[in-house]
């Protein structure tokens, strides 16, 4: 777990952060503090946070503490990183089955900075979905089985 990045524990806190973050990218990392992959991504996020100060706000969320959001965002694998801009969820075409969130850890700090920059520029142009700037080999692979409900 990272001691540098702020944590959100309740649904109200998450609501407030999503609603009040203005004109910068909001990054929410859903995961667990004791998970090894989460520790890796937290380290990358913590290192990038000061550099992205004017472009992004980064928060950590414990996936077990907010079942409402875990269910809404359909989080099954952790860490899952979601991006918002002015209370609007931003989608990214990662080349994986799920465009709504980034699952797994970034390869390095620069990858994360690139992603945030692409989302920021896209959002400023009014785009709700952007294409991932990452090398496909740097995006973790996973399988999801979807079912209608």
């Amino acid at each position, binding site marked *: 777990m990272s001691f540098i990045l702020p944590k959100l524990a309740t649904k109200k806190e998450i609501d407030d952060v999503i609603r009040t973050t203005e004109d910068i990218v909001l990054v929410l990392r859903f995961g667990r503090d004791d998970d090894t992959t989460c520790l890796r991504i937290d380290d990358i996020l913590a290192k990038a946070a000061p550099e992205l100060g004017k472009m992004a706000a980064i928060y950590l969320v414990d996936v077990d503490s907010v079942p409402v959001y875990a269910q809404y965002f359909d989080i*099954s*694998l952790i860490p899952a990183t979601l991006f918002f801009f002015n*209370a609007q969820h931003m989608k990214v075409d990662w080349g994986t089955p799920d465009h709504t969130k980034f699952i797994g850890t970034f390869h390095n700090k620069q990858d994360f900075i690139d992603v945030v920059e692409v989302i920021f520029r896209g959002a400023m142009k009014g785009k709700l979905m952007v294409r991932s700037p990452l090398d496909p080999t740097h995006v973790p692979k996973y399988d999801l*089985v*979807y*079912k*209608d409900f």
Partner: protein
Amino acid sequence: MAFVQFQRCDICRRNHDSGNKHVYSAAHRSNVQRIIRKFKDKVAESRQVLGKPVVEDATKQDMSHFWCYFCHCECERDKRLHNMLLKEAAMIEHLSSLEHQKNCTSFLAQNRVEKAKKEEFVIETDEYKKFLEATEKSVERFEEMKQQRQLVVANKIRKESFISERLVHCYREMVGCGKSQLVKLLQTCSQANNHQRPLMSRAGTSNESSWVKGVRTVEAHGEGLTCVRIQKANSSTGNIFSDAPPPWAQSNTTCPATGVIGPTLDDLHKHVENSRKRKLPAERVGANFKHSQQQSSSWLPSFGRVWSKKRNPQGSYRYLPHNIIKVSHK
């Protein structure tokens, strides 16, 4: 010393004392060649539309001009006719004029250029007459096309207004008929107009469970990734894949106790006031005055020392060195 008569050469744009020999000088020859080459290109361009006149919408075009070296004048290239622009028509008219033909002959003779080249710089009267006839036809064709385009636009507008009228009619009947009927009517309206964005079923109803059915993950696997306990989907609440309202935007969880979302009326007034003030000159009188600041009871408005003490010319006495002592002694 003999008096030397200087002459001005318009082609070389300089004065010379060589008399008639000047036209044989290398500089003058090269200038003449350059002019002829340039003008030939221009004439070739206008000759292209001679057989097939081009008519365009005048509103989109700016008028362009060309310099006639033979007549020493600037002429228009295109001709404006009502709301139409006839490409190169004015230039063709100029090239076919008798005045231009005369000037062309004298220019070629003056600068010792072959007379045979005259054909390249003028347009014969017969050709011009044919061009006029062709122009009339193409103008008619253009007007027909324009009318057709207007008809298409009018039809589109008529169709859209019909659909909107029908929608309003549906809405008014909503009170009488059930909501399901309204949705059906809306769907038929949206089907009628395929160009419009399809109407969401959620838009007309307040029922939150009316979003489109989505998908949810039932199984997930990733190398090095932890799979959290997949929650059982509650069919009454959707998720990000269905078009469900997000938790942060749901009415029962709005954080402000007042239930007001977004800026208040006061904020709007403040914004309007600020944006109005921003347009005013920064150096205006009293620009930095703080209206909200509390003032003491003895405060009086500043009159800028014109009427408060003395007349303006006498106002400077206070700053003159010999008066400073007097004032301080008082």
